[in-house]
């Protein structure tokens, strides 16, 4: 699958999920305050390494 096909699939899935979100109704709704997540670059390299190992192990 090439990148444009992957993007198309992503867009379709996002549209499906957005549509589903619109159907929900609020009940005494509480709004959270979420803290932004900042990742140190070293964590990313570890994650990439783990992903590569995952792929090697099938």
């Amino acid at each position, binding site marked *: 699958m090439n990148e444009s096909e992957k993007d198309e699939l992503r867009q379709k899935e996002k549209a499906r*999920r*957005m549509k589903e*979100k619109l159907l929900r109704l609020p009940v*005494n*709704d*509480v709004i*959270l305050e979420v*803290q*932004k997540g*900042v990742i140190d670059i070293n964590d990313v390299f570890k994650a990439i390494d783990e992903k590569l190992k995952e792929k090697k192990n099938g």
Partner: protein
Amino acid sequence: MAKSCNSAVLDAALQYLEDNVDRISVCEGEPTTYEHATSTKGVATGKKLAMSTTPTFTGPGAGDGGGSSRKTTVDQEATITVDASGDADHVALCKSGTSTLLYVTTCTLQALTAANTVTIPAWDIEIGSPS
């Protein structure tokens, strides 16, 4: 000596989240396992108070930190039904197919009541420039 990282490397990590996350949950206490993040509080080791199966992302794009930093936005997840009452203080992103906890962040403590709803506003995940 300077360090650098091509944005494609960081985008791959952020894109991994968009391609794999299919659960976003609000938890009481820090979830360190998939079970914590997806099982309702009061059931086994569950810490989940509310969960949605429709997380969406916008990005990746340039980060706020400047340099080669990159970020993705987790879109607002409105009016999720609360399954168990408790004090929400963490938000988790998971992949259900492999039962994997992928990302955890904190939120300001907020009491939730079962059967009501909770909204998670849009928030960012950013990877900083190498330093």
